[in-house]
């Protein structure tokens, strides 16, 4: 039941997806990442259910968009509430960086939706080919 319409805590008033989440269970914190941020997917291999594909762990890319905040499937998988909701991002990476034998164009990218706790900010690096030429709407 929707009890109140509230903006996410710490929101700046910009119209991102998280403000469309009408729920009494708001995420604890504002999104960590903005569109265009360089991120790296953690190389973690936890026991239990997770939604981060194995091939995408360790991937370097940029945040294409914030998808909203959702109950954590890793917790839901064991009958727990998964709350507070966790921010979800669509991360864009180059195919050539993911697949050793990728023969397609260097510009080919893949978008994968990854939860916030799987992402770390990747430092800006000159000549970081993996993220230099990726384009997203900021």
């Amino acid at each position, binding site marked *: 039941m929707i009890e109140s319409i509230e903006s996410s805590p710490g929101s700046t008033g910009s119209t991102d997806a998280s403000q469309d989440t009408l729920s009494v269970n708001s995420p604890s914190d504002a999104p960590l990442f903005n569109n265009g941020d360089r991120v790296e997917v953690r190389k973690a*291999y*936890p*026991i*239990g*259910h997770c939604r981060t*594909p*194995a*091939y*995408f762990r360790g991937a370097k890319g940029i945040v294409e968009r914030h998808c909203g905040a959702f109950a954590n*499937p890793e917790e*839901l*998988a*064991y*009958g727990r509430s*998964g709350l507070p909701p966790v921010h979800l991002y669509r991360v864009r990476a180059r195919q050539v960086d*993911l*697949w050793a034998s990728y023969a397609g164009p260097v510009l080919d990218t893949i978008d994968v939706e990854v939860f916030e706790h799987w992402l770390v900010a990747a430092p800006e690096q000159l000549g970081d080919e993996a993220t230099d030429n990726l384009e997203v709407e900021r």
Partner: protein
Amino acid sequence: MIDISDSIGIHDLGGRLQEPFNQEEHDYEPWEKRVHALRELLATKNLLRVDELRRSVESLGEEKYKRLSYYEKWIWGMSQVMVERGVITDEELGRRIAEVKNRHD
């Protein structure tokens, strides 16, 4: 010794080389439709989350995961969660399976 590959589930197929598979459309068997309907029913009664079913199917182990069909995996996964949640007991399930088996043997 436990290594990383032990944590990458058999279900996590993305990027792995696979054999070609049959891409033709096919109808579902009545029993498969019943399994799907049962999952939906359990979901509406808040007895089964899609994430629980996924986790359960993912934990089937390589041998079963490869051998069982899609809906056979659902049956195993759903039963597992129902027992976990105490909706049914192992004993009830076993008894019922034996009853149905006897009808058909």
